């Protein structure tokens, strides 16, 4: 039997009712939190310091303000001609029940040039990994399989490396250009990894950013409907009774004075709110909000001159989060260029950058292709007289037995 839709339908209706009820109280909370945020305009330096000293001890994510909090910059002029490269990847993870130990990464590659001499090049490049050094990371004593999150990390690196290749191949004209990635530039997935695993992936990822920096090609990533609560984290500091910047005292959630006094923490009003809730009101179409530095541990501690900054930009009813490395963020012309190009790309794509849409289309592995790949693998192993059988569990799931 599959999904019992009758049973599910009842629960869906209950959920909808509960969601509608909570929306009203959320709106009221949001306006109070936004008011506190606006009040802090002009005191950016103060709260930047507060974020720095609270980084280790606060339980939530933080953003370090770089520009006035009420920034709402209009979209700069879009250059007549520009070029960009973008990449996106998908993977077929190691199948423990499958016939062979291997995984596949498919990278979609996009080059687009607009203006006087428009041109597009779309392609995809699959790579099959099956060697011992592809399947495991090892530091001599420890041997860590590359699967799940680590495979995603490897894919992120491969996407970056593809961008360098694309840039060398295509971004040779003297017109404004950009290298674009989907999702975040901050490799969260590595935050909890073992040191040597983190060093391995992050080293290669930062090498890709180094390569783009050397070439002078700005890098950016676009996050549609971001759910990150980093700016909200900094507002929590504004509400926290324990923060005293003058005394060098940041928020320390393990010694929360509100909790000690038997109250709900003052910052609990921020519960469930995200950055876009805060900034939505101050940005109209095409405008971008203030630049922040993400204070996530891996970004602050490991990204060197590539420390990731971000800003929000309004595209229709959505605020997108755009991330850029420090060497781009510190050049106002480059920030303006990214702002203009990201908006133009989203406009051409009907709300989402067309280059990323195309890269995704190139990268995606559909279920039919996935099956063909499995058959190809099994047939080839069979011909090579290698063991090609799937596990009993996988066989048992392939069809319903009467």
């Amino acid at each position, binding site marked *: 039997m599959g999904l019992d839709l009758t049973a599910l339908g009842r629960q869906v209706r209950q959920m909808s009712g509960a969601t509608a009820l909570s929306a009203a109280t959320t709106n009221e909370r949001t306006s109070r939190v936004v008011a506190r945020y606006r009040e802090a305009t002009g005191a950016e330096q103060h709260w930047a310091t507060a974020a720095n000293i609270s980084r280790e001890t606060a339980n939530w994510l933080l953003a370090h303000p770089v520009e006035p909090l009420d920034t709402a910059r209009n979209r700069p002029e879009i250059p007549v001609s520009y070029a960009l490269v973008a990449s996106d990847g998908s993977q077929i993870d190691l199948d423990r029940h499958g016939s062979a130990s291997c995984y596949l990464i498919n990278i979609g590659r996009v080059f687009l040039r*607009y203006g006087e001499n428009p041109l*597009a090049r779309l392609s995809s490049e699959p790579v099959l990994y099956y060697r011992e050094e592809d399947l495991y990371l090892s530091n001599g004593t420890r041997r860590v399989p590359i699967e799940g999150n680590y495979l995603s990390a490897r894919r992120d690196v491969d996407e970056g490396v593809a961008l360098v290749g694309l840039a060398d191949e295509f971004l040779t004209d003297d017109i404004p250009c950009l290298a674009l990635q989907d999702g975040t530039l901050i490799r969260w997935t590595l935050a909890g990894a073992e040191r040597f695993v983190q060093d391995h992936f992050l080293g290669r990822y930062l090498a890709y950013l180094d390569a783009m920096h050397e070439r002078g090609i700005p890098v950016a990533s676009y996050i549609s409907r971001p759910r990150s609560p980093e700016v909200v984290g900094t507002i929590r500091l504004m509400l926290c009774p324990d923060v005293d910047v003058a005394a060098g005292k940041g928020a320390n959630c393990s010694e929360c004075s509100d909790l000690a006094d038997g109250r709900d923490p003052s910052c609990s009003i921020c519960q469930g709110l995200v950055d876009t809730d805060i900034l939505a009101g101050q940005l109209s179409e095409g405008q971008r909000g203030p630049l922040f530095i993400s204070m996530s541990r891996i970004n602050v501690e490991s990204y060197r001159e590539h420390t990731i900054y971000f800003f929000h930009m309004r595209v229709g009813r959505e605020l997108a989060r755009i991330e850029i490395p420090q060497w781009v963020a510190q050049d106002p012309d480059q920030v303006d260029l990214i702002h203009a190009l990201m908006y133009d790309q989203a406009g051409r794509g009907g709300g989402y950058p067309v280059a990323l849409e195309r890269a995704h289309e190139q990268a995606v592995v559909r279920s039919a292709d996935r099956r063909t790949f499995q058959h190809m693998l099994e047939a080839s192993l069979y011909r090579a007289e290698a063991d090609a059988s799937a596990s009993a569990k996988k066989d048992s799931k392939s069809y319903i037995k009467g």
Partner: protein
Amino acid sequence: MGVAAPTGSPMERIGEVIESSTTRFTAGAYELLAAPPFGSLVRAQTRSAGVAVYGLVYEIRTGSKEPGGRAMMRGRTYSGRNLYDAEIYHEHPDLAEVLQTEFSAITVGYCERDRRYQYLPPHPPPVHYSVYPCDDAELGGFCESSDFFRSVLFAAQIPSDELLSAAIRATARARHDSRDYLVYAGRELASLLKDDYDRLTAILRRIKP
């Protein structure tokens, strides 16, 4: 009627076979929206060097390369600007990569070295082999004989009357003796359609000079 020697056409290939069967084949055009005209004669290369298959183009279509994909309207931009026709392609260079123009041809004969045959070849053109347009000389030469009229008239699921009229008009244009050719073609049609007066007159009206 005599058979003219093949021209050894230096014309550039325009497409590639992507679907092939004994009676018809479909080709993808290398340039978006640039398919050979309806009713025109095309030549598909085969695995034997001297052998090529002739087809008459009976359908042209353009759509998403993605199975099940559809094009979307792009004439009004996100910022409210209006774009017209070719401007849309200029503003979206990626369209040329994701859309594809295809044309299908009904097989009407083949050539082997310098001989042309107006019946089905032993093998259809292989998938991925090149498709070339035929110039006036080659078209005129192929249509020296009208044996293929019958294959077109009685082929199923194609607009056969329209297709044959278009092919006859194109051949007449390509030949010096246009009028004589039309009269000749009309007589051939009359003999093929002696039992179907309505259909005959409908075709004759379409090829009338």
